[in-house]
């Protein structure tokens, strides 16, 4: 009896030990639904997913609450931040009155662009070992470099003093990174775009590849970069190729100004002939999950949602039928209204809720800094509202990064605002909206850019580039020598070697 029990005990102990011996494998499990990083990017298909991830950050232009367009508009003299109240978006509000500081600066304008750079760097590091068609690989490399350049261009214009990172950062190096001069950033941007241009296709099939970077898009961006880098002579030939030999006529790639200015803002007009590079959006996300808003899996256009009037209610069928539940951001200033009032682009640019309300045709809830003048370029029509899912998260209108009217005016500027070519470029932009020719001058180009590109996020950068910011934004709290660039977000200064921008220390 005793013996039998001992045997039982021993065998039980053996089972216990056996289990323990196996326990190492018992607590090893493989991740599901993801890939090991060291073996990924092995073929063309995987490399392409890496390229898509690099494009993802293009959404920053118009996707999510913290998008480039509404933010940059808010800091210009043409728009206020607006919104629901004085604290509706501390970042955008504090940039609008130029009290932004390291704490209120939304980190995403810095971090999201660096995410794009990280993904480009990762792809560029991995592509040499990818098994795929070499021509296609060259195009992928070109696109990754062009995207990296575009992200750095936004960063250097916003923050000026930034780190130049061209490879994925090793864990051990995280806190050893320093800023570099803006000259070397511009050099890298120009190098990347220059190398990208020959590898990129002249055109792409729009149904399947619309939105991917073409040769002409990279040229246009490089031309613009040269102007910001004060190298207009280098910009001229690039922009001339983009704009074509005869302003107003199609270029070699089929691009031309749209006949009707307002058609630029019809959401179905994706990849129109005037579009050189645009950010794509989709209504097919169906997101009802606000926690994903503005993230990598949010593909909607949030500018559309942000700029409409609040609780817009039509009292008469004669009132315009617009999407009624906007958030009243980026209302135009009275000064801008007075300036553009008689321009043919007025009605496409400004939604004059004040006039409609005065006429008794509508009511709406006044937002913060309400002027009654809304940014009509982005106000969606009810037809753009998603048929399923959350309307706020499913606007599909694309946004322009650069369009032909912009490059026309940039080339005219690069030409020193003089000469017949500059005159012809300016005239073409004006003629499209039925305006007569005016003598070309820097002042004429500045005015034209203001009206033509109003509310598209360019004005603040233009003012800074022209040296006009301090005067034009004097009544908005702008401090010369400081407010030209934004503060580096506080999170980036914690424990790093980064130095805060002047005036924000």
């Amino acid at each position, binding site marked *: 009896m005793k013996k039998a029990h001992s045997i*039982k005990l021993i065998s039980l102990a053996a089972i216990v030990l056996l289990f323990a011996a196996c326990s190492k494998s018992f607590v090893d499990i493989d991740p599901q639904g993801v*890939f090991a990083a060291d073996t990924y990017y092995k073929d063309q298909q995987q490399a392409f997913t890496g390229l898509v991830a690099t494009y993802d950050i293009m959404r920053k232009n118009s996707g999510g609450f913290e998008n480039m367009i509404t933010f940059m508009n808010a800091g210009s003299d043409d728009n206020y931040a607006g919104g629901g109240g004085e604290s509706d978006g501390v970042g955008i509000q504090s940039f609008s009155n130029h009290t932004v500081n390291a704490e209120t600066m939304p980190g995403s304008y810095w971090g999201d662009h660096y995410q794009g750079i990280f993904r480009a760097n990762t792809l560029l590091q991995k592509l040499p070992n990818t098994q795929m068609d070499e021509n296609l690989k060259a195009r992928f490399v070109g696109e990754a470099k062009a995207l990296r350049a575009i992200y750095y261009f936004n960063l250097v214009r916003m923050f000026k003093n930034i780190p130049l990172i061209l490879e994925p950062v090793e864990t051990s190096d995280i806190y050893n990174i320093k800023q570099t001069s803006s000259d070397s950033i511009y050099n890298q941007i120009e190098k990347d775009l220059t190398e990208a241009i020959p590898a990129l296709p002249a055109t792409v099939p729009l149904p399947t*590849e619309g939105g991917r970077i073409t040769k002409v898009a990279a040229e246009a961006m490089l031309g613009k970069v040269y102007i910001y880098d004060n190298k207009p002579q280098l910009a001229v030939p690039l922009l001339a190729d983009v704009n074509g030999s005869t302003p107003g006529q199609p270029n070699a790639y089929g691009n031309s100004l749209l006949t009707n200015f307002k058609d630029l803002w019809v959401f179905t007009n994706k990849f129109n002939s005037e579009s050189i590079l645009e950010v794509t959006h989709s209504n097919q996300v169906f997101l009802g999950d606000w926690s994903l808003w503005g993230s990598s899996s949010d593909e909607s256009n949030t500018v559309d949602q942000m700029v409409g009037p609040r609780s817009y209610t039509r009292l008469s069928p004669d009132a315009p039928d617009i999407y009624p539940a906007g958030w009243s951001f980026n209302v135009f200033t009275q000064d801008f209204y007075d300036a553009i009032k008689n321009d043919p682009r007025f009605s496409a640019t400004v939604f004059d809720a004040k006039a409609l309300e005065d006429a008794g045709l509508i009511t709406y809830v006044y937002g913060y800094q309400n002027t009654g003048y809304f940014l009509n370029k982005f106000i969606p029509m009810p037809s753009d509202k998603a048929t399923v899912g959350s309307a706020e998260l499913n606007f599909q209108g694309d946004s322009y990064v650069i369009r032909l009217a912009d490059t026309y005016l940039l080339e005219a500027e690069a030409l020193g605002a003089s000469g017949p070519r500059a005159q012809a470029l300016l005239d073409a932009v004006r003629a499209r909206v039925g305006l007569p020719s005016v003598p070309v001058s820097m002042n004429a180009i500045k005015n034209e850019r203001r009206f033509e590109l109003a509310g598209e996020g360019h004005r603040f950068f233009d003012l800074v580039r022209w040296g006009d910011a301090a005067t034009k934004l004097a009544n908005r709290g702008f401090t010369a020598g400081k407010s030209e660039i934004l503060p580096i977000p506080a999170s980036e200064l914690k424990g790093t070697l980064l130095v805060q921008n002047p005036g924000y220390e």
Partner: protein
Amino acid sequence: MSKNDCKLCGLILLLLLTSLGSFAQQIVTGMVRGANDSLPVVAATVTVKGTNIATVSDIKGNFTITVPSGKHLLVVSSVGFTDVEVDPSSGNLNVLLSESTTSLNDVVVVGYGTQKKSVVTGAISSVKAKDLENVPSSGRIEQALQGRVSGVTIAQNAGQPGSNATIRVRGITTFDDAGNNPLWVIDGIVVDAGGIGYINQSDIESIEVLKDATSAAIYGTRAASGVILVTTKKGRAGKISFSYNGLYGTSAPAKKLDLLNATEYATLMNERSVAGGGDIVYSDPASLGNGTDWQAQIFNDDARRSDNEFSISGGGDKSTFYLSFGLLNQQGIVSTDISQYDRKNIRLNSTHKINKFFTFGETVGYAHAKSIGLGNTNSEYGGPLSSAINLDPITPLIETDSAVLKQAPYLNNAVILAPNGYPYGISTIVGQEMSNPKAYEQTRLGNYNWSDDFVGNAYLEIKPTQNITIRSSIGGKLAYWGSQGFTPVYYLSPTINVTQNNLSRNSNKVFYWNIENTIQYSKIIDDHNFSILLGQGAYVDNIGGSSTVTVFNLPVNNYQDASFNFPSTQANRTDGVSDFTEHKISSLFGRVNYNYKEKYLFTGIIRRDGSTRFGSNNKFGNFPSASVGWVASREDFWPTNKVVNTFKLRGGYGKVGNDGGIPDFSYTPLVVGGYNYTIGNGGTILTGYAPKTLANPDLHWEETTQADVGFDAQVLTNFTLTVDVYNKKTSGILRPVPIPLYVGVSDQPAANIADMENRGLEIELGYHKRIGQVDLGINGNVSFLKNEVTYVNSDADFIDGGAGFQSMGTVTRIQVGQSFNSFYGYKTMGIFQTQADVNAYVNKDGGLIQPNAKPGDFRWADLNGDGTISEDDKTFLGSNIPKETFGLTVTAAYKGFDVMIFGQGAAGNKIFQGLRRLDIANANYQTKALDRWAGPGTSNDFPRLTSSDDNGNFQKMSDFYLESGDYLRLKLLQLGYTFNNNFLSRIGCTKLRLYVTGENLVTLTNYTGYDPEIGGGVFGIDKGYYPQARSFLVGAQIQF
């Protein structure tokens, strides 16, 4: 329950009953009486020691029991009396029970076994069935624990029926909210905290809270935040008994906020507008009268609640069983139509003795719960509470003015109609997420959450000799839960409306299982008592997945008719499916208990755990502990006196671990999908893949070491006193770590990043005495706690806290030297009464410190003395963690009557009172805004109202928003009557008690929100917490 289920249960019952056989050796009879009063003791348990053979005394105290042949002792026990052992050989027994004055003879459940309380060396608090049986059930057992044990802080997560509570054992152990939940072990099954709702309160035999590392170390992993052991009732051999516990009652809000009425609102809005440079908004505020009291529309003063719990138990000398059912229904006090909880559950526990060596048993529980929730609680983004607080009082509840109804926004076909046929009022003053709560209720009807939980375990116990116990158990939990909801086409406001209806269903399934094998060897050699336990365990959880489908544009527009059976096209359907990530732990553990004459005590424990959350180099962690005790009162030199009757000193030190708080696979580099972009003009979304974050192969176990010293004493015969002091240190806290954004990864990498310490003192004092015919009991406990972050592995010495508030962003900070997530913001120094005050607030250069301030604005403290107000002037403003918590229970019984008073409270914490939406300019105010600054001398703490708050009076995080969270609450007041035996015997009853109870009758607090008791991982930020109800209940307890 369906008819078939009933049949099945009946069958199981029948099987159990037929298996109960017995063959008698000796029939023993006796009588049990109280030693003091010689009155019969009813329902005393008489057990043949070392067997399952037992019976209970009848109403005259008589019992009859069959004792097997051989030498046996009988153990006679009854609640409130000290156990007595008698030799049955004398035949007819006369047993006298003395009332117990001490709990030191109690047995407590420890991990993998039980121990006499007198030889326990760890800090364990115990709550027995008798402590709980009079507490009205709310369906959540953690609520029954609140205020009853020291060192355990319990706060309701919401007044929403069915909500769980937040439990913290000895403070916050780690940074991750879920990681701070104690480990729940129910009948040996490790269950997640969210899933303990399946137990009837009256099924509980005991609850033990293992507070120190020494007690908890046997559970190694996940035991860092304490362990709560729940033991459910088992059947006892003897006659079959039936018991019923039921209650029924009504609940109402204990407090409403004082909000502005329409006239006051219009007056203040005019003032606000003019101060900001605008015009008068309302020309005649007085004409608006009181307006709409939105709170009155959402609160229900008669929310019903009922709970019915039945159990049948009994058995013979081979098998015993305990079978119970519960039916709970509770209505919420806020928008009752969309705030309800309903639960049905069943449990079967049984044990079977196969022969002398083998025993097996099982516990099986099933619960079905259905809960209807408001949609938003503690959220500023809409929902009835948030809307009622923020909506203007001018908008009518129901719009009947025909002129108004001819205009927008009432022209929309989908406006919600009140029962009288007129539309519910739509505010054109306060927009955004706020909407008429009565209309909102209508849009959420038919939305509910459901869950089905199956929990069970089975064990086999082998006792090859008297000294050895081998036990194998297998446990599992299978949980299904999900939600279903229909959203009709509706129009609540121009902002909140839906033009396509949808029907949505979310389903989740998860399976947990574990196996544990233990072998225990006990031996007594002379005065040396040894017990050695060796064990092995394997735990697997989170096997399962989730799926959601939503169908749009159904051909019907009400939830009653909505069905997934309507055909739908792919374009009208969205879905999402995901797998959960399995998590496994493998363990080996051992324990040695030793005592000499029950005088010198020692316990040593070691556990080794491996987890799937760590890489190969750090997969395993070792968690040892040791503790000693000295029962000084057993020493010969201990004077026999009536001052200190018994005294036990104990101390221990040990280490436990935690692998939570980080994503799975943080140790290895991964490329994940979801970095998407749209390419092509069809709007097609392509999936992008990229590295998610930086891998950290050096991740290792988070460790919590704890030193505990305490004593248990019985003083002056009637007092029991337990005191513990402890120091608990958590090091290597696991958390995603913020790294510079320029690295460019979308997710933060995981790391062991910080250390934290909790120091505390706990006192439990009990008093029990029979004075004449009054039986008086008092139990009080108080706990003091100090939490401090001691190290942060970052080049800056702080981490941004996890708690944000609206547009202010983060309002807490985790910093060395401060308690976890302390409030961080500006300090106010009164209000500028005049421009002269503004001009006098100058820096050392004579410049104005607040050049833009106006009279009526806050004077901010320039804490860094640089002459300007900037981020650097922010400081720590207090903590949301109470420094003291306390509870007091007083019971008294006189003849058949009994009364219970139970109060609990907390002190020393701050609450962020954030009920008003900052970014809605026209949101309503509480009446304290009437005392705003409105001219020199009017207020020094509530600033002026202005639409252009340039000074940031309301926008800046400051002490203005923080209020003391101190409270003392009369939680329960109960009066009961137990009918006398003569009456009962006529109706064949062994017990009948009726009672009336009031819950949450009085709360003493200065807090201006609804309720100072705020649980959950919200760091004391009140954005409109669903308040707890005040309830009046009647109940009955019956036993046959």
